[in-house]
């Protein structure tokens, strides 16, 4: 079985994000970029499937700027077998929308015929949480989102999902799209031998035109702003005082 893992190059989770002065987005010039942490979990899961003999090939795919190559090299250094880079823009501030990404991934799925697509539940840059679901719709394959546990069982997968109020276990037929959540696993570090091997692993470069997909934006970003500053809190001395304060703030009737 082949596992396809889409990975996205995003602003590093440690970086303090700055909104551009003109409100058109977040400043990405000279900022450290890394693999989306949820995608790292997906790569880790795919490698574990391979190590357990459940998968025989792990293919990482990234859609975006040419520099996403670094993100793919990281996936290869973690243990993916080969990579596909679809260069869809040359502007780091141009975030390719989920629908365009999903259409490109659908085309890659047609070509590669993976047994499962493991993707991060969302990218930490725009938090859309849409690509996996759109890909499931386009391919007509089963979907299981927010996975915190995945067990393969013949031609199905038993997936535990983190939902509001608890855990839900579902069984989906493969091929399936599984989007992974934070608690699924702890991704490994790239080992030195794998870092050295990564360069020799194949990385194909493609364009959206080759797949016949139009990636021009359909959404318009009206403005981007800083979140409201958190106001200072008060330390209350008793439960009564807490209740009084909550009433005062209109949080309690």
């Amino acid at each position, binding site marked *: 079985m082949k596992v396809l893992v889409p990975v996205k190059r995003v602003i590093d989770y440690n970086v303090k994000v700055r909104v551009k002065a003109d409100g058109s987005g977040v400043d990405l010039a000279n900022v450290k970029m*890394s693999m989306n942490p949820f995608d790292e979990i997906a790569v880790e899961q795919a490698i574990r499937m391979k190590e357990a003999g459940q998968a025989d090939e792990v293919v990482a795919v990234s859609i975006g700027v040419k520099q996403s190559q670094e993100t793919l090299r*990281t996936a290869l250094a973690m243990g993916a077998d080969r990579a596909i880079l679809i260069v869809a823009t040359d502007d780091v501030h141009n975030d390719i929308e989920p629908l365009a990404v999903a259409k490109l991934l659908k085309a890659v799925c047609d070509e590669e015929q993976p047994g499962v697509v493991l993707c991060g539940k969302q990218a930490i840059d725009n938090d859309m949480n849409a690509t996996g679901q759109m890909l499931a719709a386009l391919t007509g394959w089963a979907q299981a989102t927010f996975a915190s546990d995945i067990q393969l069982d013949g031609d199905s997968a038993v997936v535990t999902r983190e939902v509001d109020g608890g855990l839900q276990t579902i069984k989906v037929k493969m091929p399936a799209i599984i989007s992974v959540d934070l608690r699924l696993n702890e991704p490994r*570090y790239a*080992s*030195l031998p*794998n*870092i050295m091997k*990564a360069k020799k692993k194949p990385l194909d470069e493609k364009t959206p035109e080759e797949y016949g997909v139009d990636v021009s934006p359909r959404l318009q970003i009206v403005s981007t702003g800083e979140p409201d500053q958190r106001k200072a809190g008060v330390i209350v001395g008793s439960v009564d005082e807490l209740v009084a304060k909550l009433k005062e703030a209109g949080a309690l009737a």
Partner: protein
Amino acid sequence: MNFGLNDEQSMIVDTVRTFVEREIYPHEDAVERTGHVPEDLAQDIKQKTRDLGFYACNFPEEVGGGGLGHVDFALVERELGRASMALTHFFGRPQNILMACEGEQRDRYLLPAVRGERMDALAMTEPGAGSDVRGMSCSAQRDGGDWVVKGAKHFISGADHADFVIVFVATGEDQTPRGPKKRITTFLVDRGTPGFTIREGYASVSHRGYKNMILDFDNCRLPDAQVLGEVDQGFAVMNEWLYATRITVAAMAVGRARRVFDMGLAYAAEREQFGQPIGKFQGVSFQLADMVTEIDAADWLTLASAWRLDQGLPANREIASAKLYATEMLARVTDATLQIYGGMGLMNDLPIARFWRDARVERIWDGTSEIQRHIIGRELLRPLGA
């Protein structure tokens, strides 16, 4: 000219940086408080380093090492330098000098050291022989085909965890026109060898938990098989293999300076006095400007000296410049950051005071600033006949 890191180098830096942030930083305070690294933590760091394939990354692949060149290794050391030395000691980088092992010495010392099964330490300094290494009084006499070692070594880092120690000992004296000159031989001495004891050294203000030990040799008998390299050729062994270790000190100083600087920068942007962030005062922002300029300079000086070694070019002068400048830069950067933090910087509640204390030893060990200046001056003047 290319000043960027290649893909492999970026990933090496990322991996080691993430490793120290996740696996080392959380334990630093405890080590600082107790002056001690618990054995299970030491073993855990060692095992994780082995799993990562980074253990002995400074050794060639033929002997099971990571096969990194000098620049790549300097990048590893730079990232490790950010964290507590007491802990990064277990991200094992055995002494390169073990490559001088021959025959069965390879199986007894070199290969187990590279595999992380046996740890080494290097012993040169004595109470009466610091910068003047040749002034050592620890000596070995021939006795019935063996060597009998007498004397003591001190300031021996890592000897508390060492399974064996690489020791430099005087094995004779030559008469030269400039007076008597000692001949030095290098020995491999196993922990537990009769007549050899390792004991606690002094309480140092720098690098708590990274202990300096005292070695005593009381008629310690060693067979010829324990000689590393040739008899009386200790200086040759030293010059061939210990030449590059100064790059390690320089690279670690750069890494630590970056960590300290980032804290100072963040504090200058956050801390308000007189109604504005203190970074808005030129007295502070100019200090930050000087600091980052010096850190960059030391970084490039260090990497350039490592690059010269990779190219097979002479590098003695450049390595001395890097070691000298990077360690003196670290002193200035830690001091200036402490000043930005003000009184709070001196408190043990923040790591700033620790970095400031730790910085002090860097100008002393692995060749003092004075010795580095001496090397640089000599390399400049010798070709001119002076």
